């Protein structure tokens, strides 16, 4: 797009690359190297750029001395279940919006799309008594249900825009062969829709995995706590300043989601920007 043959252009290009690149990537580098430094090296006023001595001590202490593994397990269960529920709901709703016509279809869809304007914190005020009266406060099912708030609207829209591209001829041909609509959807449309479905699953999973607000409020018991509040309550309090452990734990809880994204990032970016909603 730009001509970078001149010296000034090269300088500007390189300068922007270094400045924004530093801002984006150095904090990640800092988390990794800080987690690998011994305490003597970590707590210095002038920090070392590269660890002089590597140690995995912070990782062992994060795993053995805190309940990190419990939190990770809880997050895995809660995020996996809520992502699965969200994906199933969004798959059917998206297909319904894309391929069927009925009264109220457009208003309902528009309404779901605008759901971003309902503040999550405000919804929580009323979800809390609802979950209490259903006996779901401080339970994983309660949290799983609440997580539908975050991702369902966008997930539905992402799948809607995908199903719009599935040719009607394909469905018509199957109908002509005498297949019922649900059967056609399950045996013909779904198998060719795996990439967007995986994208939507991952998108929903990420919202739950990253959440702090809902988990912190709706879960009270330590043994059901997920990683967000778990990390916060373990490492960020006035008396305890274990930054090495905090960085090691941060890295460990980020790994699963970062790895998943590295593999699926192309689908993912396409899916999210196609939705054109958050």
């Amino acid at each position, binding site marked *: 797009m730009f001509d970078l043959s001149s010296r000034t252009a090269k300088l500007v290009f390189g300068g922007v690359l270094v400045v924004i690149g530093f801002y984006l990537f150095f*904090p990640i580098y800092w988390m990794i190297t800080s987690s690998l430094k011994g305490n003597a090296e970590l*707590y210095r006023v*002038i920090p070392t750029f590269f660890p002089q001595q590597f140690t995995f001590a912070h990782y062992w202490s994060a795993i053995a001395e805190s309940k990190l593994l419990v939190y990770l397990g809880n997050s895995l269960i809660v995020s996996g279940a809520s992502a699965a529920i969200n994906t199933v709901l969004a798959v059917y709703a998206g297909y319904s919006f894309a391929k069927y016509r009925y009264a109220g279809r457009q208003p*309902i869809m528009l309404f779901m799309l605008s759901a971003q304007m309902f503040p999550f914190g405000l919804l929580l005020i009323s979800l809390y008594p609802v979950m209490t009266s259903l006996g779901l406060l401080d339970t994983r099912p309660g949290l799983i249900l609440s997580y539908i708030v975050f991702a369902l609207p966008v997930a539905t829209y992402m799948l809607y825009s995908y199903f719009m591209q599935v040719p009607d001829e394909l469905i018509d041909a199957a109908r002509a062969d005498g297949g019922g609509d649900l059967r056609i959807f399950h045996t013909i449309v779904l198998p060719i829709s795996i990439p967007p479905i995986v994208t939507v699953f991952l998108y929903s999973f990420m919202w739950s995995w990253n959440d*702090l607000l809902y988990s912190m409020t709706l879960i009270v018991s330590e043994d059901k706590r997920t990683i*967000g509040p778990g990390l916060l309550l373990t490492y960020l309090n006035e008396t305890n300043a274990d930054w090495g452990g905090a960085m090691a734990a941060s890295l460990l809880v980020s790994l699963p989601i970062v790895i998943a994204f*590295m593999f699926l990032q192309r689908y993912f970016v396409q899916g999210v920007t196609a939705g*054109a909603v958050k």
Partner: protein
Amino acid sequence: MTTDIADAVPARIEDYPVSPRSRRGGLQAAQRRIGLLMLLPAAAAFAFVILYPFGQALALSLFEDTLQTITPTFIGFANFKAVLTDPEVWQSFGITIIYVGCSTLGTLVLGLGWALLLNQPFKGRGVFRALTLMPWVVPSTVSAFIWAWIFNSRFGLINGLLLELHLIDVPQAWLSTPEGAMLAVILTRIWRSIPLFMAFFLAGLQNVDTEQLDAARVDGARNFAILRDHVLPHLRPVLIVVVVLGVIGGLQDFDTIYALTGGGPVRATAVLSVEVYKTAFEQWDIGTASAIGVLWVATLLPPAFFYLRMLVKGR
């Protein structure tokens, strides 16, 4: 799936296309039933976790509901009256505006710059693009930890750098000052949002007509003129999408601020989301919290309106 935003967002709401088959005459009631059946689970979930709580919160804002009240009592608009005359709530509005304004503007500039850069062909571009997603996908608590450590008052990176450069003589307690804490939450927010903005801009850059660019270049246009006259005008629709989504996301943001500063020092970074949370779940004043929350919805309405208008009227 397309990467083309202009295609992805229908120009008019009436254009939400429906398959020609179902539009054809002789529309079968059976098919309509299947369509509704498929929508039903999602609609029920939506009503249960979004619609009902929202209505409930609207109602609660008209009640006095604190730890002292056994059953909520209807008090009309008294909560709103109290909230709107409370200087702390107004302060929270101001903080929210600064936070959302600065972080959206900052992300816009840096996200656009980064997208323009990663749109140039160069070796390792794919790796850069993939790595850029990392700040976005790490959990919010983690990003708060990273930046809290960077801003740490005794051993933080920022203090270390500034001491090395002799710009300060003693380490500063950044997060204990109102300005420092605000700077930290804004920098964290920008850091987390650049990836998404970049993705949208990169998608938008594919709309730029390269032939037109080549022609302009033959006519002697320099890089800056190309950017101003040929690239930025094409990015206008994406720019609007990104700003609206950025503002909505910023207004919704709670996790990073809460984990990084807890809304402090004192109330310096208590944006509306933090304010509502603290009023509801620390002071258990549900009525007041709901009233602040309703005002918070009011701040979300303009961007949401723009967003819907974008869908309805086209750009």
